[in-house]
């Protein structure tokens, strides 16, 4: 049985659909992320799951029970809000214990569970503080504890880390993952930060314009995105339009402006002459050899690797290479040997593409 099952959820505001037919299932104990660009309907979806907003159509099931018509306070869900909204007139312990008090848990047990929850988020001993006296990261933990302590069937998190700086965000991300495992709670995490979603989640669902366009484990979504939107939203990708020229075993060869590319596909579903779109990830592009030739037009240093944008017949492909600290432009002859020599703008390089990904093109 699924902790959460959503079927055909719809919500319009003044005739504009904000959520348009969302269905999803989340097994108990899973870390599920809902990601998508700003305004795609993530918060609206979450509010309907929490019972804070009434859907126009669709059902919400928690542990197999239909809760669509129940208000928020009668649902076994709790929310960590984007802006936290801790109660400023209550202490940390009172904040965390508020949900327990409302469900009738009385004091020896309540105090114990509050202490346990605070310990889980590494805030043991902070119970008597006022929320205003805490740092941003600590407030974040209080908000998490306040929701988690109620042992919800599903914990809903709406971009809870958006307001934190990068270091703290990375730290809290790891914390969230640990806490999720330790407490064995089902997490539904909403964010527009694809990087954090990919690193934390068991399953990722990508939303666009009120719909889920692709869902699956992060690795699968990354290596085999269904659409060009998913390919470019999850990591870097160059998109090329082309035509299938021949079958090669299970693969197809696609003729693009940059040159012919091999894409693994269910060859049977494509015929020679089909117009298709392929996505090329930077990791799939190798320097030297290969059948493509182009000119380096831009270079970016990214710490341990270096990235070059290469113009192949009007299409820019991105290629990456680990930096070799010993090599300098002075002792280098050409980057075209794969020896870790820095790129130079204007030089001509040859590229190979190991694998292009066939994707649906929503624009077509």
């Amino acid at each position: 049985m699924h902790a959460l099952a959503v079927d055909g959820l719809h919500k319009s505001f003044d005739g504009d659909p904000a959520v348009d037919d969302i269905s999803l299932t989340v097994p108990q104990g899973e870390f599920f992320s809902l990601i998508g660009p700003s305004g795609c309907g993530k918060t609206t979806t979450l509010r309907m799951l929490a019972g804070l907003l009434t859907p126009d159509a669709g059902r919400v099931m928690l542990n197999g029970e239909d809760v669509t018509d129940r208000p928020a306070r009668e649902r076994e869900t709790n929310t960590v809000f984007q802006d936290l909204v801790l109660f400023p007139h209550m202490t940390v312990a009172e904040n965390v214990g508020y949900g327990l008090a409302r469900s009738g848990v009385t004091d020896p047990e309540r105090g114990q569970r509050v202490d346990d929850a605070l310990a889980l988020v590494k805030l043991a001993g902070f119970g008597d503080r006022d929320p205003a006296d805490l740092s941003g990261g600590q407030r974040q933990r209080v908000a998490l504890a306040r929701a988690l302590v109620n042992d919800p069937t599903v914990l809903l998190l709406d971009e809870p880390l958006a307001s934190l700086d990068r270091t703290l965000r990375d730290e809290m991300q790891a914390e969230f993952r640990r806490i999720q495992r330790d407490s064995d709670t089902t997490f539904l995490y909403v964010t527009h930060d694809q990087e954090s979603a990919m690193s934390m989640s068991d399953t990722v669902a990508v939303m666009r314009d009120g719909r889920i366009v692709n869902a699956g484990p992060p690795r699968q979504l990354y290596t085999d995105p269904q659409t060009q939107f998913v390919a470019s939203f999850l990591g870097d990708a160059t998109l090329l339009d082309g035509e299938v020229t021949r079958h090669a075993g299970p693969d197809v060869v696609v003729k693009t402006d940059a040159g012919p590319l091999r894409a693994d596909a269910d060859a049977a579903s494509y015929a020679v002459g089909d117009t298709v779109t392929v996505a090329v990830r930077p990791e799939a592009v190798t320097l030297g050899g290969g059948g493509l030739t182009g000119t380096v037009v831009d270079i970016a240093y990214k710490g341990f690797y270096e990235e070059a944008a290469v113009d192949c017949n009007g299409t820019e492909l991105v290629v990456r290479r680990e930096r070799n600290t010993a090599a300098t432009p002075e002792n280098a002859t050409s980057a075209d040997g794969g020896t870790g020599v820095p790129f130079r703008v204007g030089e001509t390089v040859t590229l190979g593409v190991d694998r292009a990904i066939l994707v649906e093109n929503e624009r077509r």
Partner: protein
Amino acid sequence: MSVADTPGRVRDWLIAGSPVLLALALGVFPLVTLFVESIGPGLGGENYAEVLSPLYRGALLYSIGVGVGVTAVCLAVAYPITYWIAHRCPDRYRLVALVAVTLPLWLNYVVLNYAWVWILARGGVVNRILVGSGVLDSSLDLLYNNVSMGIGFVYIYLPYVVLTMYVSMERLDYRLITAARDLGASDYRVFLDIVLPRTLPGAAAATLIVYARIAGAFATPEILGSPGNIMIARLVVQAFRQYTNYGFAAALSFVFLLLVLGSLALGALSPRVRRELRQW
């Protein structure tokens, strides 16, 4: 700190200090005069002894009671009104709603009282409608009792309470209410745990503004109240005008002031109120 700063600082103090001094003088001077008058002639306590006689004691307590009761009703009415205006009313109608609720502020105080005489009198609007529509056979006595006086008081003082409460209510973060609901709070608990504590300063300010004025009101009890229930203002006025017993009038006023301050302090000392007020 260097010596060169000193003249500048003195001047700053004078500039900042003089309005404060003026305000203090305006506030305190009449009080001192009143107090001196009340213990005269000859430093006797007779005036105060008389104030505490049963007749006056009754009027004092009745006045305080009316003040507490009407203030409570005003707050009870103002809470839902301001909550609605601040958190439910569409933005563009908010100002209109506020103006509508506070319209009586623009009219003369005495006129407002007589408006209710006109509405509640035997031949007044309400009776005419009730009799005319056949609900009643003959007119009711709706005027000159505690209810008509209460209606008049609430009508006149509600706008002050609404305006003061509105400021607090608008600052109440609605997301807190959402969060409380999400954690399982019923409407009643939302009010008790979120709305009340976050707006208590507004309620306290409103109380400070209207409570003493209601308890010490003159016109409304005279025009709408029962002739048998005497409020303190009438006695003070009588002592001044009819008996020209200034000392006694002053003593009466002073005891009343102490009672008002005392009852306000009692409210402020309640631990819950103290805790919430400390936040601000």
